[in-house]
């Protein structure tokens, strides 16, 4: 698989699946751009937790709310995070990095 050579930090992404709540609809399997989930029998399972980039597509499309992904606002972008820190400290609403 092509993305295997692009791995980010292991044991870092926040992704949880409540197996008891899962109804096995397979939406998470469909939408995940890193193929983190697999459907086994009538339940979804996380097969590659470190492949997760926390885009949140699975959680958004889970009809029973069985998936939890890091809910923090923003994207995985250094400049955006620095800007939100600056804005929190100064109380301003700057847009320095045009993202």
């Amino acid at each position, binding site marked *: *698989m*092509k*993305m295997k*050579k*692009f*791995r*980010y*930090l*292991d044991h*870092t*992404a*926040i992704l949880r699946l409540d197996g008891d709540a899962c109804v096995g609809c397979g*939406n998470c399997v*469909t*939408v*995940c*751009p*890193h*193929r983190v989930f697999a459907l086994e029998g009538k339940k979804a399972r996380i097969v590659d937790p470190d*492949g*997760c*980039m*926390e*885009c*949140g*597509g*699975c959680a*958004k*499309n889970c*009809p029973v709310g069985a998936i939890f992904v*890091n809910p*923090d606002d*923003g*994207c*995985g*972008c*250094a*400049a*955006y*995070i*620095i800007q939100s820190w600056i804005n929190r400290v100064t109380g301003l609403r700057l847009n320095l*990095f*045009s*993202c």
Partner: protein
Amino acid sequence: MARVSSSLGWRDRLGTLRARIGVVRHRYRVNPGLYCLGNPTHESPVLVSANYKLSFDSLRGRLAGIDAFILVADTRGVNVWCAAGKGIFSADEVALLVERTALAERVSHRRLILPQLAAPGVAAHTLKKNCGFSAVFGPVRAADIKKFLAAGMKCDEAMRSVTFTLGERATLTPVEVYLALKPLFFAIIFLFVLAGIGADFFSFERGLARSVPAAVATAVGLFSGAVFTPVFLPWVPGRQFWLKGMEVGALAGAGFCYWHDGGMANIGLALWVAALCSYLAMNFTGATPFTSLSGVKKELPRGLACQIVLAAVGLGLWLAAPFIRG
């Protein structure tokens, strides 16, 4: 209803180029609404897109010979994935547009094809509840849509996976350079003022003579961090981006010293090269399709601390050099 073509003209290509460089960003939009492609009937598929013109063009440009409707959601000029991630591209937004364009009167089916990367913003079950149309997630890339339609709206694993090819990475580098140019221009002006400072307080000639290598070092750091590191990303060892950038920057800095001389001022500038390269590489996390927010938050404090210390020591050495030489 507006009719659009699947072939892109020179204006579209020029627009794509300008957007890729970064000259136009959020202003590069199409009007939200329903568009006709080819000669769609009431049974033709409805493809949903964002109103960033680059998104819209990459969709219609791949649909030669297809009769379809394109429903362009108002994502404030932001691309599909980023708009979905920020919640602008949402089920509410799509449902609103379905009603406003009276889509139910134009098609007999009740199905919308969404880009897979709209999933972080658009909940399929909410969409169905809001407007009666069910959502089918199409492939990640517009290039696979014809294949998806031909296969009876099915995707294989490759069509569902994001990639980050050499070409895709290279395409992203011009805008990184462009956005860094403005702050770096001011940095060079600032360095020029500092460059004149010496034992005799200030000399314009010394300022000019010393700011040339400083500008060269800045350009080397910019290129190595915003172009070289992204393009060679999978081959630069390590996972953290600041570290990848530091490795490339250290090599580039060493090269800089080799081409000039290894005096104190140039060693200082080499440290500046490494710090700048590391920062720009870290900044590229925002453009990749695989870095998580948790991961970036983890590496950011370490990276930033190293970059600030290196830049400060480098600037200190460079400033101190004319005093020591006497």
